[in-house]
């Protein structure tokens, strides 16, 4: 039989009983949709981890205060993580060569007659390095690819020193827009401005910066800034010592576990945490690395994927058995038809191919509908997996191949049975 004749014959066989065909497809539809959703979760998890890596480099440890529930209220588990914990860390911890932390406060800045409502950033002496390593902004009119130095980010003056941070120095560095707003065209370096009721000396002005990724430019002007030592901001604006989040930069990426242990010992000593009877520490801080996020994310995705994989396998097997069942019924119903076909010259392979192709049409139909259902179910899968699911393009051909294989696997036995019918008995069948 030519392929065209064969396809026409099988299509007719399937379409003779459309409702039955669609119902038979259900198992395949669910199975294939599960495959699509499963791979979307894996893909989404990977994408999510990748996007988080932008904020947490491989050599970074994020340190935060451990929170705990006390009568339904979220409170700190022990001592707060203070800026001093962070400030002294590079000195005290061998593998940490730099830390980054910040705190902010809303304030009014005034110089002469110019008054400005502004968000103050309390940072460390290495804040500019942090800006550079985050790689989100760059000085305007600088070609891409050129290695930028600290000086490229400073238009005038200097940034504050470690000692100024330690001693709560009344100094500040202005973003270029803020400098213009307060001083017009005048040179701000060495001038004293008022931040609320505190005097503060301007020691530097940043270069005009722009976002590297143009899609982020809606996020406001990166030049409206007023940087002060974190200690100064805390002293000026906070009545109690606030919790800070510290990012530690480890000098050797291959020794992250060692670095974490060093940071733990350092903080345990500072927070006076003693081991309990079993030698376990009940830390009041949390350390997070890229590896931790990756692990947690993958674990969540893996658990869910495993569930979907099990569902996919079960549905595909059940769907396949459904196809086999329907095809066996169909072969029996059409015994006479097979007899006629054999009588007019059909060979075994013509009959096998006809019924096998019918089974495959059902399974491929289920596969196509399953892909559609799978794509539509991705938002649902995402809502069950903290919003992370992304269609994996390769999953569509995979799903179709799987449905073809199911059709062949479960269609071959009924097809062989049809082909082995005795023509005389088949022609007599009532």
């Amino acid at each position, binding site marked *: *039989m030519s392929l065209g004749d064969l396809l026409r014959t099988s299509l007719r066989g399937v379409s003779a009983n459309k409702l039955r065909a669609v119902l038979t497809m259900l198992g395949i539809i669910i199975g294939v949709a599960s495959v699509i959703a499963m791979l979307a979760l894996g893909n989404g998890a990977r994408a999510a981890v990748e996007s988080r890596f932008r904020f947490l480099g491989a050599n970074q440890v994020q340190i935060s205060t451990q929170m705990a529930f006390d009568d339904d209220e979220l409170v700190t588990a022990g001592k707060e993580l203070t800026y001093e914990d962070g400030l002294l860390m590079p000195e005290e911890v061998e593998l940490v060569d730099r830390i980054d932390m910040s705190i902010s406060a809303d304030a009014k800045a005034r110089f002469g007659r110019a008054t400005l409502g502004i968000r103050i950033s309390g940072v460390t002496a290495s804040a500019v390095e942090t800006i550079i390593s985050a790689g989100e902004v760059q000085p305007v009119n600088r070609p891409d690819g050129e290695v930028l130095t600290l000086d490229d980010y400073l238009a005038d003056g200097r940034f504050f020193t470690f000692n100024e941070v330690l001693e709560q120095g009344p100094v500040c560095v202005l973003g270029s827009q803020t400098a213009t707003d307060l001083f017009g065209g005048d040179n701000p370096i060495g001038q004293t401005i008022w931040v609320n009721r505190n005097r503060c000396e301007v020691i530097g002005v940043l270069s005009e910066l722009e976002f590297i990724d143009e899609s982020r430019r809606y996020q406001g002007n990166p030049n409206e800034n007023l940087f002060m030592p974190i200690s100064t901001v805390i002293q000026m604006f906070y009545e109690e010592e606030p919790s800070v989040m510290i990012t530690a930069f480890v000098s050797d990426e291959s020794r992250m576990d060692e670095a974490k242990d060093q940071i733990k010992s350092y903080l345990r000593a500072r927070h006076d945490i003693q081991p309990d009877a079993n030698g376990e520490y009940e830390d009041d801080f949390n350390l997070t690395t890229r590896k931790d996020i990756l692990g947690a994310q993958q674990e969540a995705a893996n658990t869910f994927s495993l569930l979907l994989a099990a569902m996919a396998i079960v549905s595909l097997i059940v769907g396949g058995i459904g196809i086999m069942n329907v095809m066996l019924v169909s072969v029996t119903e059409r015994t006479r*038809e097979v007899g006629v076909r*054999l*009588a*007019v*010259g059909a*060979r075994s392979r013509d009959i096998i191919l006809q019924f096998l192709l019918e089974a495959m049409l059902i399974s491929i139909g289920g596969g196509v509908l399953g892909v559609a259902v799978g794509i539509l179910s991705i938002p649902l899968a995402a809502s069950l997996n903290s919003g992370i699911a992304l269609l994996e393009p390769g999953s569509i051909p995979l799903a179709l191949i799987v449905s073809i294989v199911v059709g062949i696997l479960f269609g071959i036995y009924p097809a062989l049975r049809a082909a082995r019918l005795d023509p*005389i008995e088949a*022609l007599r069948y009532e």
Partner: protein
Amino acid sequence: MNGMSRVVIQTAGLRREYAMGGAVVHALRGVDLTVQAGEFLALMGSSGSGKSTLLNMIGLLDRPTAGRYRLEDVEVFSLSRDDLATIRGRRIGFVFQNFNLLPRYSTWENVALPLTYRGGEYRSEEQYKKAMQMLRRVGLGPRAVHQPMELSGGERQRVAIARALVTEPAVLLADEPTGNLDSATGKEIMSLLSEIHAEGKTIIMVTHDMSIARYASRVCTMRDGMLTEGEPAYVAG
């Protein structure tokens, strides 16, 4: 008969035995039959005489337990199941008592069915052309797109005859072709078969009805698995 005697079918010592419920049934006990091209042979006999078994054997739907069978120039029983199917599709046309048309297939599609098993020899427009030619030959051209359900019994059998002839077979095998028809319609079908015979087609027909057998040019009778020339004794006498 046209006098050019060419042998289409020649069997020698055909035997067929079935095991049925422990007992051995001898359906054919050594049948020697020679059919010349252009003959219209009626095979008569009571039910269980073996006439249908012989027809199935001639039609390559069944194989003998022993014996030889030449169809035209081919010793057919040495062939595989698939090779037999191929020969059936090319050299033999079947007409059944119960028509055996495919439901949900239109008249012309039923007629074209054997052409689809010719390994792509006929493209679909050629299949249609050939089927229409045959339908017109049996007087059913206007019924080409009807389905079997919409046809009368006589029309259905005409479609079946068109299907049997569409491959231009060496022999047309008819098993009680009028068995499901009333006598008036049966006569129409028989005169159609007579016309086809008159055009030179070789026909072998199984029947138990003497009035039907009279359309044939030659009558043979099966009895207890044996073939004898001539009409059954009880009718002839």
